């Protein structure tokens, strides 16, 4: 069934009631707005005040800590020197050719009859050794030892060449070795 609204209040009276209703709403909005404004203003300003106080407190603590750190500036300076030095020392050690180590290893592997007469080391860790063997046996022994994978893994290249026999029965030869890299 259709609902029908019938307003029995006359036109003028209805208009007056509408105007009064609007006035009441406006008044309500104004009061609500004022309370809301006061509330937010109080809240925001008090929050600002608290945060400001906290920031100042932390800044004060930072100043105190900085003052204490300032008393240790010499220690900090020494640490800086130590770090600087260790970095540079590492650079120097890395730059070593390793020739002495290679020579030491070759001497260790050389049997008794082998003598190194002239040893020449280059800047890239390469060694050229003019050596002499008392006999073929010692030379053979040296070459066997240098061929051993456990020994040869420490070198990039090993070459024995220019083997010659002297009138005294000794054998001169050229041993060329390149290390695996800088020490």
């Amino acid at each position, binding site marked *: 069934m259709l609902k029908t609204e019938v307003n029995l209040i006359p036109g003028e009276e209805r208009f007056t009631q509408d105007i009064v209703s609007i006035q009441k709403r406006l008044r309500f909005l104004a009061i609500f707005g004022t309370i809301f*404004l006061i509330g937010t203003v109080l809240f925001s300003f008090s929050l600002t005040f608290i945060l400001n106080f906290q920031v100042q407190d932390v800044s004060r603590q930072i100043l105190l*800590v900085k003052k204490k750190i300032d008393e240790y500036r010499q220690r900090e300076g020494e640490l*800086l020197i130590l770090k600087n030095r260790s970095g540079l020392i590492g650079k120097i050690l890395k730059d070593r050719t390793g020739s*002495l180590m290679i020579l030491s290893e070759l001497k260790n592997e050389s049997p008794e009859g082998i003598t190194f007469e002239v040893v020449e080391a280059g800047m890239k860790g390469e060694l050229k050794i003019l050596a002499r063997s008392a006999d073929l046996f010692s030379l053979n022994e040296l070459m066997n030892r240098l061929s051993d994978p456990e020994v040869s893994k420490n070198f990039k290249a090993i070459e024995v060449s220019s083997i010659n026999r002297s009138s005294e029965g000794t054998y001169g030869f050229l041993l060329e070795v390149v290390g695996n890299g800088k020490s």
Partner: protein
Amino acid sequence: MERVEFICKRWRLFVLPLVVIIFCLLALAMVVLPQFKKVTDLNQQLKIEREKLVALGAKLADLEGIDEMVLGERVSFSLSALPKNKDVMKTISLFNGLAQLTQTQIDSLEVSPGEIATESPTMVDPDLENLTFRLKFSGENSQQLVDFLNQIEQSLPLMNITTFRLNTAGDFSPSQLTVVSYFSSIPSSLDTIDAPLKKVAKEDELILDSIKDYKKYQIVLMEVPEATGTSSVRTDPFAN
């Protein structure tokens, strides 16, 4: 017409609330919103300051935890390994000392010292500077010669042998070697207090440990014999 008259008579009841509402809106926009923005900024600032405080606290704790004596010893050792100044005479004296130790003899020595050491008060020079020495030396047997080389590379200040030629053949020609000695000025300006602490890393400790057995020899400076002559005071030959 009557309705308009009716509204006009009751204008205060409309205007006042409207003014209040407009004022509230303006106050919200011009006062409250900027204040909330300020609150956000203060929050951010507080967060940053707190982080800064934590970092500074950690730096202070690290500095307080360092043993000053140990640090001093390590610094002194590192400076003996890599000095800040060139010192040609000291290095030459060191070679002489090592030659005596290994019973070898230095036949000749060449060096190009370059510019005498200067230290800029503000410049930090991270690069290594060096001096190159060329020595001719001889010994009775190859072991003495090799010992001499080993002593050079295992003594302080640090030196690197770049090339050498050892001669133990019967022709008596001397052995030769090229040695590089190093120096570098120390950093003279510190970072700001806020900067994080430059701690010594494990790798740095390992590097220093690798040379801890290197020997620092007591260097006896070579004596230069006094010039012979009738007087030790030179007279001006052009004086009247």
